[in-house]
């Protein structure tokens, strides 16, 4: 048996977050991360986001929130007075939310203006003999300028084609496994650190698969203290990773 629930539609993760914060009646500067994260994930689990791109964008925010939540649950390391305080990620999130909200509000006003102005109609009868004569139709353009533009545009096109090719190659698991090992060889990391913001979902998936495969082979140790907690990664006691060997050669 399923319940039909009327869910509001959000244009993006920020709109959803702002709505949750408003409903909780809390300050944007003091977001109860744990509670808001749970509600955010709950919304995502109930609603089916059909647009795959949009779904990915919602998930990226979910990952950020989970990271924040984990951080808020962990005991804070004693801060060394000497060390400069690292930027509070909660504050950064609040700033981005506020910035988004300004444009969100402005967009509502622009929508009203469009409707208001749309109520006044210009004449639409086609004017007889409507033939525009441009005295200088190309402006100050020269053949040389056109040549340069064509060369630039075609070069950019060629690069895009090449990038497409590269992408296809870069999604190889062994390559990503080597990259993960060489990254961990420097120092242990959190799983989230391996995910570069803005990359494709496929990229995230490949990273996840690489970590799982390495864990299976015992080359990487994975630790998570609690559900949704931070996933800590470090080099395993298994085979010596390639990355180290090559580093040793230098």
């Amino acid at each position, binding site marked *: 048996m399923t319940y039909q629930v009327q869910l509001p539609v959000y244009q993006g993760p920020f709109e959803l977050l702002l709505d949750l914060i408003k409903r909780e009646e809390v300050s944007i500067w003091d977001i109860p991360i744990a509670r808001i994260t749970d509600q955010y994930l709950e919304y995502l689990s109930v609603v089916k986001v059909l647009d795959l791109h949009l779904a990915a964008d919602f998930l990226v925010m979910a990952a950020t929130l989970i990271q924040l939540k984990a951080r808020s649950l962990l005991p804070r390391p004693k801060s060394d007075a000497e060390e400069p305080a690292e930027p509070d990620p909660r504050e950064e999130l609040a700033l981005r939310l506020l910035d988004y909200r300004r444009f969100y509000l402005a967009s509502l006003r622009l929508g009203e203006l469009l409707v208001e102005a749309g109520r006044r*109609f*210009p*004449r*639409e*009868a*086609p*004017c007889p*003999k*409507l*033939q*525009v*004569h*441009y*005295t*200088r*139709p*190309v*402006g*100050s*353009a*020269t*053949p*040389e*300028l*056109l*040549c340069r*533009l*064509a*060369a630039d*545009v*075609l*070069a*950019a*096109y*060629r690069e*895009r084609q090449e990038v497409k090719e590269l992408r296809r190659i870069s999604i190889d698991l062994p390559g990503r496994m080597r990259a993960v090992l060489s990254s961990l060889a420097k120092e242990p990391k959190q799983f989230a650190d391996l995910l570069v913001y803005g990359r494709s979902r496929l990229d995230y998936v490949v990273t996840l698969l690489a970590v799982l495969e390495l864990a299976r082979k015992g080359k990487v140790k994975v630790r998570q203290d609690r559900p949704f907690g931070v996933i800590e990664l470090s080099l395993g006691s298994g085979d010596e990773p390639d990355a180290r060997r090559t580093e040793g050669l230098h």
Partner: protein
Amino acid sequence: MQEELKACIEALLFAAPEPLSEKALAELTGASPKEVEAALRELLGEYQERMGGFLLYPLAGGWQLRTREEFAELIEKLHRPVNTTGLSPAALETLAIIAYKQPVTRAVMERIRGVRVDSALQSLLERGLVEEVGRLDEPGRPILYGTTTKFLVHLGLNSLDDLPPLPEEEVL
């Protein structure tokens, strides 16, 4: 009431792309044909009296607002603006692609530029710098575009052979 109906009719005549019949005006305003006729007659008289920029003319079984004949030359000037504005960056890029890859379809231009070229192409067509030169023998028979004589004239070129050559590697 009569004033209100006159304003309604004037708004409709003003906005309509074609002459409107009395029947259509009656339907749109909900007034009776008699009322519409009376309102139109009053409007005709008013426009004659004030001698503004336009008058009401009977046309194709309907009525249309049109500028007075005396202003024909003035309005022609309007459509012949001394337009010295250059092309937008988007239009210039599109023109460059057409110049070097003609005859070329819109799809190819969009693939190369990575964005739609509708408005850029439109502005080039309006300026008479490019034109349709045929159709590709493919499903959908897409239009092929090429540059015009006007293009050559305005760029000071004798023929397309006088275009500066592209660097080697960009000759796809």
